[in-house]
């Protein structure tokens, strides 16, 4: 770093011309985007292939496994509907991670924030008596506040004591799970037969169906898409988003420019928590309608893979969330028909993260391939 500051070799294009007035067609920008996309695609493909190899080692035919995964995800209209419902919380989890990363906070606590958000939203759905028009919004708000509250202490500890967010948020995931178990089993348990769950929430608190039976796509997807748009605008168009992005890339320069770095990291974590809480809520209010004591959907880790594959771009999160929603949705059928645990999806997610992180290597390989192509031509 220092070295390059001190001695920057002269440019070959000896005379850099000042730009002309008119806007250049941004073909270069498009090409750069294409490269980013293709790297994500390659990372994804490599993960699928490696996952297949692992399956083969475990004695399962990867082709049949993937075939049933695909069938379960997108094979029938109701499978597609299931995928869409599945992707709702995943979109929010991915957004939560993406926003955190924009503000240079790696929020591994999405899982816990999502649980607490879902719990709070659900309780509001059960116990508040409100007219239909405001009941659901109040519940969702409760969920967001819940997630935010769960992110607050780690954020505060980082701000005041400089305790790493990674450590505290992970601890808070565990604490959230125990808290949930306690509250559901000992305090808010249903009076009916099922022991380890709350009551079902009131009808006024449920998300209406977007497309009715037999597909049952719930309207949470609209809210999720709305969240994507809002986050996109917030990050890219507002002054606060500008400050957060600047903080995420270069804390020193941001601080020197008068941006309050600590506050931005604090905010990024809180917003991330709120999004996570909303994600939990949308799932509970959209398709489950009650909390189970062992609700631990694993959307947090999925969110990491989603956000990474999307390069933390909110719009791209929508696409990658679809991918992961499909995988998780299809995994159930795969488990039934081939006996491979649905947790196989976690392996693929882990692989995706690894391959995305090694993008430099992929770039290097692509360059080499290109060179070879040129040589052959």
């Amino acid at each position, binding site marked *: *770093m*220092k*070295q*390059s*500051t*001190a*001695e*920057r*070799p*002269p*440019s*070959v*294009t*000896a005379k*850099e*011309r*000042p*730009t002309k*007035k008119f806007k*250049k067609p*941004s073909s270069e*920008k498009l090409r750069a985007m294409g490269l980013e996309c293709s790297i994500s695609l390659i990372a994804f493909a490599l993960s699928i292939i490696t996952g297949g190899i692992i399956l083969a080692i475990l004695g399962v035919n990867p082709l049949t496994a993937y075939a049933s995964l695909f069938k379960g995800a997108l094979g029938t209209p109701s499978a597609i509907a299931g995928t869409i419902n599945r992707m709702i919380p995943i979109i929010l989890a991915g957004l939560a991670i993406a926003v955190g990363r924009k503000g240079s906070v790696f929020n591994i606590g999405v899982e816990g924030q999502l649980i607490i958000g879902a719990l709070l939203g659900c309780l509001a759905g059960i116990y508040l008596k409100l007219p239909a028009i405001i009941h659901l919004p109040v519940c969702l708000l409760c969920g967001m506040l819940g997630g935010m509250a769960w992110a607050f202490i780690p954020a505060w500890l980082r701000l005041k004591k400089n305790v790493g967010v990674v450590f505290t948020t992970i601890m808070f995931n565990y604490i959230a799970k125990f808290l949930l178990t306690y509250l559901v089993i000992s305090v808010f348990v249903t009076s009916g037969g099922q022991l380890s769950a709350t009551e079902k929430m009131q009808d006024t608190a449920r998300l209406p169906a977007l497309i009715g039976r037999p597909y049952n796509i719930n309207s949470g997807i609209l809210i999720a898409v709305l969240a994507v748009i809002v986050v996109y605008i917030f990050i890219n*168009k*507002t*002054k*606060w988003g*500008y*400050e957060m*992005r*600047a903080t995420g*890339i*270069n804390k*020193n*320069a*941001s*601080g*020197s*420019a*008068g*941006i*309050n770095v600590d506050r931005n990291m604090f905010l990024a974590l809180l917003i991330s928590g709120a999004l996570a809480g909303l994600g939990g809520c949308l799932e509970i209010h959209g398709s489950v309608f009650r909390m189970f004591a062992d609700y631990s959907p694993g959307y947090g880790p999925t969110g990491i893979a989603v956000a990474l594959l999307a390069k933390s771009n909110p719009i791209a999160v929508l696409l990658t969330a679809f991918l992961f929603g499909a995988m998780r949705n299809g995994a159930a059928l795969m488990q039934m028909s081939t006996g491979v645990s649905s947790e196989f999806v976690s392996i693929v997610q882990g692989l995706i993260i690894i391959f995305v992180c090694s993008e430099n290597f992929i770039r290097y390989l692509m360059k080499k391939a290109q060179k070879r192509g040129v040589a052959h031509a």
Partner: protein
Amino acid sequence: MREKIIELKGITKIYPGVIANDHISLDIEQGEIHSLAGENGAGKSTLMGILYGLNQPDEGSIYLRGKEVRFHSPKDSIASGLGMVHQHFMLIPKFTVTQNIILGMEVGSRLKIDYPKAEREVRQLSEQYGLGIDPSAKVSELSVTMQQRVEILKILYRKAEILIFDEPTAVLTPQEIDEFCDILMRLRDSGKTIIFISHKLAEVEKISDRVTVIRRGKVVCTKPISEVNQAELARLMVGREVIMGGGERVQVDNSEVLLDLNNLSYKTRQGVQKLHQIDLQLHRGEILGIAGVDGNGQEELENIICGKLHPSEGSLTFKGEDISQMGVKEIKKKGVGVIFEDRHKDGLVLDFSVKENLVLGFQDQRRFLKYGAFLDRKKVDQNAQKLQEDFDIRCGSLDDPAGKLSGGNQQKIIIAREMSANPEMIMAIQPTRGLDMGAISFVQEKLVEARNAGKGVLLFSLELDEILQVSDRIAVLFKGRIVKVLKNEGITKELLGQYMLGVDGEEDIDEAVNR
């Protein structure tokens, strides 16, 4: 003629978009001090990096004592008897002197380092060359000069015969430079070969046997030092005449005090007193240069003025208003623009576009917003285009990331941005570091322009030449104290150097000034 110990033949190194070394050929003779002169960015460091094995050349070959060699890493070059003292010291602050020196060449068995023996060896070596180093001291507690000597010991310990020094005098005072030159001569007289990289021509002329001038990645010439003089070297280095000093100065009313530091002290949280009772006034229409050896409290003073730190005692006022407890943002709003030392660290967000960088720090000002919260793209674009024209920022497109630009153009972004808010005072911290001559004179012109417009300019620089060229007044910082404030009239480098080392001798110096 002496034996050629190193021959570089046709060394070429290409970075994306840049030819750093363009078929450089050069030879070094046994037992000489060979200077490599060239301005910042000419490709000297790249070339030495290649010779030392840090980088691989794209073309060309290296011959050592007539035999072709390839250095894949410093390990190879060290084994062949090369040693390098880097511009940014390669020392580990938490380690002791001994640990730093023996690193990679540990004494004792493979299982256990024999520290007592190592310390003995280091002490012996230090005495042999008269370096005066305490082997058990922690490097973080040593002064810059001493750290440099540790670096020298490090390569001597590795039995280096060919010593490469990369801009070794940049951080030293004139007096320290003299001592350093003595050390170099002593090393040469004991039979070592020395390659001396510098853009400071006085030292080049003083100690070299031969000099090679590099410009824009190419060798301009190699000559015995007796055949050239400083002026000629300067012309060879830059390729044209460059006049430093920032151009014409007009007489401006400089009676009003802008920034007033009164009895200001600063203690760190650990209780270390970094600044002692500083009294300093910056007026409108003047450039006040702050001279001093690195690490004498500059950083703390800068940070207090820009609002990153707050003084523990004393007052700090700007236009009569107390700003001592204000943060960066507030002070900025009051009309203080800051050009930070490290462009990449503090000045720019390299991944942001040029456009975005041009509003950094002003992103929440109404002139760039619509509806109070959204950045108005049109206004941001207009701002960028205007500043690009005014400050001649050269880039492919204003949407390019700032990291793609050359150092000079990056610095222009920062200056343009800070000036665009029309501040009343500018604090410039090492604003020309690492720039080539053209860019340096541009920056200096802008500073003088600001001064002529009645603004106050506070200039921190480690380059005495720059301080002397640009300042109206000079304050010298030593161990956290302002030891002297002088009018910049008839002051020599040597005199400043004495103050920088805390030498008092009031009378003699006053005499010198009056002369």
